[in-house]
């Protein structure tokens, strides 16, 4: 079973976590100004890269806090974990 390093609790089993999809998606600043096209992009279009991907996880059966991770979608390796108010780390 995959271990996921919660930034607060340390490595815990994957079953303790809930997946939250792509990270760094901001709610629209002025929702009423958005076109249909822009709404569609906000609601439905997410990155789906083969390689490093910044995503959200919640340690739902532990400290219940959300955090971000950069994970390689080919290998499942977690390359970095960081707080949700921190910028995405540069991964070489």
């Amino acid at each position, binding site marked *: 079973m995959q271990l996921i390093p919660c930034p607060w609790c340390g490595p815990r089993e*994957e079953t303790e976590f809930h*997946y939250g999809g792509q990270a760094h998606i901001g709610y629209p600043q002025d929702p009423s100004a958005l076109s*249909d096209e822009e709404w*569609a992009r906000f609601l439905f279009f997410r990155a*789906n890269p083969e390689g490093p991907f910044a995503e959200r996880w919640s340690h739902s059966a532990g400290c219940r806090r959300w955090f971000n991770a950069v994970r390689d*979608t*080919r*290998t499942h390796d977690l390359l970095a974990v960081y707080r949700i108010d921190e910028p995405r780390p540069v991964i070489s």
Partner: protein
Amino acid sequence: MSRAPGADLPEDPDFLWDNPDPKPAYDVVIVGGGGHGLATAYYLAKVQGITNVAVLEKGWLGGGNMARNTTIIRSNYLWDESSGIYEHSLKLWEGLEDELDYPILFSQRGVLNLAHGLQDVRDSVRRVNANRLNGIDAEWVDPGQVKELCPIVNTSPDVRYPVLGGTYQPRAGIAKHDYVAWGFARAATVLGVDLIQNCEVTGFEIVRGRIAGVETSRGRIAAGRVALCAAGHSSVVGALAGLELPLASHPLQALVSELLEPVHPTVVMSNAVHVYVSQAHKGELVMGAGVDSYQGYGRRGSFHIIEDQMAAALELFPIFARAHLLRTWAGIVDVTPDASPIVGLTPVQGLYLNCGWGTGGFKATPGLGDCFAHTIAKDKPHPHVEPFTLERFVTGALVDEHGAAAVAH
């Protein structure tokens, strides 16, 4: 099901397909040599009369999701749009062995979709009524009838999620997936299609908004039209052509048991406890689960998904308790926000898109092949795929099939 395991498997054929080198140019290049790519090539040649066609496959033919699914075929979807394409496909399945002159072991042993809660029951009955209005065979069966159709199902009311009944589609069933790929490949080869393996597409040549060719690991190939059939990797391939797609790729796991005597006469799916089971012609129990929650391209999933799947299987089928697990694997499925596929034209002229079948692409293989070939040849969507445009995510005309998709995602 009285014959010995494996007794009805056919002999190996003396010819499957040629392995030509790519020509400098084709009328149509299909990216992806899985079931959808091969079926599209076949119907392009057979029905549309376009035979100067190449299918490019980065690995080997039928080696992706085509070799990794649980082979279930059914058309009991809720909405008219889905009923249209899946029932068209089921009708083609019913004649496919003759059409391809190749054994595909299509077995219409029926599919049961079990209901375990009151809302499950209401949704299921609604779906049966919707199916019947669309001319699709479907019935609601009570727990006693479930027991008659599949005697090994535990219909005791004293379990955590008792079986309250189910929907049953008698014409549904399974086929042998690798034979389906080989049958389409062989028939396409005979009609003059070039099937090119170990040929990865690395770029697209687009001139003034129109497709002109593809760059590949085996050189540049000019193409009048290009059709994408890359399944789980559609986002990756689409990005090479500048397409952004509303897709999330997830691992979807399945597993098989050792060979057993025939015990399981139909196909049983359960959306609530989450397992689906059939018994392959050779005798393995074939079981599927839901997708892993995270996005990814690694063809292995999480162990706890298998654990949950096995727990559900054991509650439904107590006699499986001593069956040995033979192997597990995962395919990569591309899931859309409404659990329906994306098929049709793109902003690039001459570039056609087929993706987003998520967990349900296998059953659509002949139907999609026929309709996508029509779409490519006429440069206009076939009526059965017209609702499945990329634009629906902007217009809001979604085809929400999460309920009928039968796999949690």
